[in-house]
């Protein structure tokens, strides 16, 4: 079964990581790179992407004639989606364990960040016996 692991970072101001010493930033980057490699090597990684900062985010709605109406930056947003992984695992517990590992990524001074990772199951197609007409 597939799960999406969504990593949320604190919003409201500059990137959290920007205030860390260089060595801590390096350690964090190395951890994340290694984490991705490990998931891929285990055959559990379906996909992962990092997202650009909330400063560039736009909300879009269709106008009366279907035109795009964009709404600008949201400085008041408390947290934003920084990136996600999609993993294919045998059990929800395994997805939670992976999320916990990501959550404990090193932050300032090497202390675990314990950031919040939202875990959601990716919905599948119908099970065979439910296929209409089958």
């Amino acid at each position, binding site marked *: 079964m597939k799960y999406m692991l969504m990593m949320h970072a604190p919003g409201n101001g*500059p*990137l959290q990581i*920007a205030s860390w*010493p*260089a060595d801590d*930033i390096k350690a964090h*980057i190395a951890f994340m790179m290694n984490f991705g490699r490990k998931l891929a090597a285990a055959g559990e990684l379906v996909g992962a992407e990092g997202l*650009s*900062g909330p400063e560039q985010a736009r909300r879009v709605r269709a106008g009366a004639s279907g035109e795009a109406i964009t709404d600008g930056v949201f400085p008041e947003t408390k947290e934003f989606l920084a990136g996600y992984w999609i993993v294919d695992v045998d059990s929800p517990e395994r997805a939670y364990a992976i999320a916990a590992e990501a959550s404990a990524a090193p932050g300032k001074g090497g202390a675990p960040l314990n950031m919040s990772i939202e875990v959601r199951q990716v919905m599948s197609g119908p099970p065979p016996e439910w296929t209409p007409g089958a």
Partner: protein
Amino acid sequence: MTPLDPATQDLLRTLAPQVLGTLVRRYRDFADCEDAVQEALIAAAGQWPAQGLPANPKGWLITVATRRLTDQVRADTARRLREQLVVSLVPADEQIALAADAAGVNERDETLDLYFTCCHAALSAASQVALTLRAVGGLTTAEIARAFLVPEATMAQRLSRAKQTIKAAGGQFPAPSEQERLARMPAVLHVVYLIFSEGYSASSGDRVTRVELSSEAIRVARMLAELVPGDPEVLGLLALMLFTDARRAARTGQNGELVPLDEQDRSAWDRHAIDEGDRVLQRALARGMVGPYQIQAAIAALHDAAPSTEAADWPQILALYGLLRRVDDSPMARLSEAIALAMVEGPAAGLAALDEAAADPRLADHHRLDAARAHLLERAGDRSAAIACYHRAAARTGSIPERNYLLLHAARLADV
């Protein structure tokens, strides 16, 4: 299936555009011919390792591709019409005696026309790039998909739509004049450079299984340079890519973070590629027609020849940027020119030039402007302003390695 050895793989990719050029010339329909050639390439990859290289590889591919094409026509058409149709597709002067592997009317033009077709103005840049890699580069759909980190089905659809677009836009071959060929060259060079830049900027993904787009672009440019040896801009582009690619091993750190030119380990640069770039650039400059790729190659050559960033011939680099601005004024070139100016006349002059460049709306909100400003502020000794600019740039870049570099650089400044 036995994997292909690199030599055979190279041979297949070199022959692919020639075979396709010949087929398109004979049977006109680009989309059908392209499919047929891909099938012939796959057949070759399956049979050659086991049965050995045929005596005439190109003839073999043409024969197999033609057979696939007729199979396709057979499947599409009522039996009675089929023979007539295939015969009528062959130009009258070629119906009698042309052997499968005989050179066409002008093989060079046939192959060159493929480059033009793939860079058809009706196609989006992404489609031009994908089609060039497949039709000219001889890559499979799966390989192209992997290179761009998109699912194979997505790439297959993109390619198929591109071919439909060409068909709808009248992708037949009106055999352009020499003059028209020259006029189309910039579009082709642009697409080759796009392929190269994609390989150079995209550093995510599993390197081992990715086709190296930068190497592909260089290979395609080499073939192009053989087709049109008289065009100095083709050579200029080839030299520029060689000089840039020579720094590949030094331009990313252990965790994929960007290492800028002034922090690169120059002993890790590929001297062999730089030497070749020098030779190619000399050939281009000898022709005396200066274009933007040659100028950029000349700038890259000066960097690659210097033992350090500080020791580069900055007055010469600055003069070349001035020249570049006259032939091809682009916002990114202006940023680089401002940096060069700062190296010659000091950071204050560079910062003033950046303010001027910022008036261009294409640049005003660009993260590179902030990055350049940060760099010059740092040189000027204004640490806190530099850090703020690095952070602004980091928050806006769309590239993870670049963001990491900008954040790390700002952090190092703050740590001092």
